[in-house]
């Protein structure tokens, strides 16, 4: 009985070197395959969520993302909405814009951003909009995340 385990054990032990080699040499192929699996996407808390719409306002191209209320189970009462601001030609120094994040034709908040001094002011026009989460230049555009409370009154 003991002999039955010895040969498979040695075969397995030998194959460990091959596994290491395949893991690294075949990494681009294996990583590409793994990336297609359903769970291989960055959580919206980090990615900002899916884009809902993109439109032009004055000299800005505004991209509004889907509000994120992520939680391990269900959804959280606190979340954020991400807005990406890009200039038509280049990012202006002063940005002033009004955002309707839920597409109900009512402005939800105003942003005043000085991209040179990195100052951002939020004027909330909707009680569900609470505060700035983060506001930062990312490459050629500006990203703002605004904290939201979940609308539980629907």
């Amino acid at each position, binding site marked *: 009985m003991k002999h039955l385990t010895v040969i498979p054990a040695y075969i397995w032990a030998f194959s460990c070197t091959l596994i290491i080699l395949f893991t690294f040499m075949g990494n681009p192929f294996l990583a590409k395959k793994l990336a297609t699996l359903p769970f291989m996407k960055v959580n919206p808390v980090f990615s900002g969520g899916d884009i809902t719409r993109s439109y032009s306002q004055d000299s800005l191209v505004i991209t509004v993302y889907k509000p994120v209320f992520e939680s391990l189970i269900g959804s959280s009462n606190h979340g954020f909405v991400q807005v990406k601001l890009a200039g038509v030609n280049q990012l202006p120094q002063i940005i002033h814009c009004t955002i309707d994040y839920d597409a109900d034709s009512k402005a939800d908040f105003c942003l005043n951003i000085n991209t040179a001094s990195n100052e951002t002011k939020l004027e909330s026009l909707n009680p569900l909009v609470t505060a700035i989460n983060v506001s930062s230049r990312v490459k050629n555009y500006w*990203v703002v995340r605004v904290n939201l409370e979940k609308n539980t009154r629907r």
Partner: protein
Amino acid sequence: MEIKSDYSTTGNLRKTLLMMIPMLLLTFLFISGGKPDFSNKVNVFAFLLTFLFFNWLFFMILFTGKTNRYRKTGFIVLALFFSFTFILNLIQMRGSMTFSDNNLLSCEIPFCHIVSTMVIIPAVVTKTIIFPGRINEGFASISSMLVIITGISVAVGRGFCSWGCFYGGWDDGCSGILAKPLIKKVNPVFKWMPFAVLLIVALSAAVTLSPTYCMWLCPFKTITEYQKVTNLEVLFQTIIFLILFAGLVLVLPILTKKRIQCATFCPMGALLSFTNKVNIFGLGIDKDKCNNCLNCTKVCPTFSITAKDVEKGKSDFTCTKCGKCIDACSKKAIHYHIKGTPVNKNHSLNRILFLMPSFTLLLIFTGRPLLNGIELIIKLITTGSLI
């Protein structure tokens, strides 16, 4: 069943050189990346030095029969040169070791192996990865690192902690600075703390949907990258990781001659310990040869051999397979063991079968950082600048 041929290379130059042949090819392949660059003298010199270094290490491991001394040399080189080249790369890209909001928003953070302890539960429940990284692009993308971690776990189990982890060399190196420990008795009960850390970070990461170990506890941010301090919370986090690095990675390993961070804190070590349960390689103790001197229990850097384990004839499942106990045993009673085979037979073959994947791992992780590091040092000497 005993395999009749003697695979022992100890003291046998002919057999050692024969066993070197595959490693010579592998070192050439992995250092050059398949495309050797001999365009200038610096590249040639760096390549030759790296090539000779690894083959010298492997030669000495085979010829002398000593594993830990030479493994440790390569492991420390990995730690130093990985940090050196990583930090320089960051400075070239970003201007500093810090990352700021824009790096987080762009999901440009490299995925470290320790993060895998935190992403499992959220990946199962929410079907997303809770890390601001790239799925399959750039350096240390999420999918490439997950593939690497899985392959390594299957092949060597917790042997990764002594043969591949680019952080472990720091406390392994510090644990070897003093000839004798200043703190002689460390309660081995602390070897169970990494499991508690694993439990807490895995759960807290799942509940908060953020990599809590990275944010709050990882001491190795000191020698890789860390968040720019812009508020009180980040300042607090920075102080914590600096204290943990100083304490767990530098001071305590020096004083105790144990790998304190790896043995008593790292959650990845705890996770990989479970893979040791199914990994084919282990450590066996030949009770016919063992004289119960318990020297192995004193030298083990991760508290993975106790008197009870010696009685059982094998190391505990937290063993990192560093080989220190093997080298320390005066009766040559401890050996790398392949599960399912007799403990007191075929030591030489078992050793070679273990050394091949583990040394290859060390080579793959160390090769390019060492090569690039040598080129940068030459650049510094000749031009006065690293960048």
